[in-house]
């Protein structure tokens, strides 16, 4: 199957759980070197959509065409690490990893070389997310999928994490698909945005989406104004 410059094509995907419509006729494409972010309120079906793309759950209807030999890596939502299993960062990064040739480069790039001997449960939220990102990058992915990577992080950790993600995107041919609540961060860095609330409410460039009536009805006019201010600040050069 040839999919032009699309690496993933999602067509009319529906998900029904316990007679509840989680996703309704969702269709979109992810292109080469794309940076696509899915936003939407809690319970909108964002994580379910990611899990369908990853093959973790099967859709009730619809199809997902994935380019042949596409290497997909996944950074899960903030996870609770149990103390019951003793695993340090170094062990975790190399666990079930076929290729560790880029290990040294990646740990330096995301600045985790000093925490390699720490147990996973001893990590702060920001450190853990960087480790999860590092593990995903070891696979040298064509598509990196991030599920709310900055959830539960303090502002400085959020900024640091998004900075790393942006730098990674700019310095590689990798595509990124991200689910996020952090509208400020999303609108300033992503190429395309999909606003999801069981179905695709609106999609396009960030500057288009935040003016869309459906976006305003979901997130409120305050958020729209805040984002437009933020966007304005970053889109203009000041002498």
């Amino acid at each position: 199957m040839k999919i032009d410059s699309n690496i993933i094509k999602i067509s009319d995907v529906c998900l029904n759980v316990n007679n509840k419509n989680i996703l309704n006729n969702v269709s979109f494409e992810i292109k080469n070197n794309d940076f696509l972010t899915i936003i939407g309120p809690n319970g909108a079906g964002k994580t379910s959509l990611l899990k369908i793309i990853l093959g973790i759950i099967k859709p009730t209807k619809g199809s997902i065409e994935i380019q042949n030999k596409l290497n997909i890596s996944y950074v899960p939502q903030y996870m609770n690490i149990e103390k019951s299993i003793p695993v340090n960062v170094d062990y975790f990064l190399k666990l079930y990893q076929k290729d560790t040739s880029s290990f040294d480069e990646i740990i330096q790039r995301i600045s985790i070389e000093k925490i390699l001997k720490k147990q996973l449960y001893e990590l702060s939220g920001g450190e853990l997310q960087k480790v999860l990102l590092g593990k995903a990058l070891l696979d040298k992915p064509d598509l990196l999928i991030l599920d709310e990577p900055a959830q539960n992080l303090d502002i400085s950790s959020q900024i640091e994490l998004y900075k790393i993600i942006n730098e990674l995107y700019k310095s590689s041919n990798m595509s990124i698909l991200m689910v996020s609540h952090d509208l400020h961060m999303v609108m300033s860095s992503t190429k395309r945005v999909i606003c999801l609330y069981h179905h695709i409410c609106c999609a396009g460039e960030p500057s288009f989406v935040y003016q869309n009536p459906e976006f305003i009805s979901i997130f409120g006019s305050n958020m729209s104004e805040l984002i437009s201010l933020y966007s304005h600040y970053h889109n203009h050069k000041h002498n």
Partner: protein
Amino acid sequence: MEFEIIKLFLTSTAISVICGIMGCFVVWKKMAYFGDSLSHSAILGIALGVSFNINHSISIIFVALLFSFLLIKMQTKTSLSADSLLGILAHSSLAVAMIIIAVSNKSEIDLESLLFGDISLISLSEIIFIYFILIIVIFTINRFWQQLILLTINNDMATARGINKTKLNAIFIILMTLTVASTIKILGSLLITSMLIIPAATARLISKTPHGMVITTILLSLFSSSLAILFSNKFNLPTGPSIIALCAINFVLIVILFKKFKHEN
């Protein structure tokens, strides 16, 4: 007498390794109650085996697998939590087992040895069976080690990497079933879970990696069981409870030493 002692050491070595490996996974996956419930269902297996003249190991494996299958089915069909379902299944099977034992009126069922085990009753063919199970456990865990560890840390991450969660969970349940079937005669239904949990929990306090924890658990189990055999033989004590009592003493000593070491550092 010497042959009996060698038999006891051979048996305790095998169960130390089997329970050491599987015990770590029970602790990591927080499945202590599952192990406990499985050992309760094993009594029903023995009761059925005696009543219908079937080999006990086969009837235990059959009942324990049926138990696990019912648990998985009920988990998907009801909103009840896993521990409630385990409680229902474990105690129902225990009750049915007691009724079958009472009705069958077979003198060969000794309730005390069912609950607490009796290592001295072990036959040579049963020792061979335990070693056969030991080889299966070591081979399977070694084959799926990395997948099992990643799945234990995070389900979604493992599944996204192409790890078949259903297959691995089924493999784990089968290994647990074989562990219970091979050790129930020695440790009894009430003490199997202790042998799975206490050495692993002790090892957790002093381990930095999963490999390290498995090796430490096996060494602690070997130490406790060997010492228990010597003590029980010398002072005419029940072997199964002696093994568990020594495991518990080890746990307490290591907790104290660990706290002291942490305090000093």
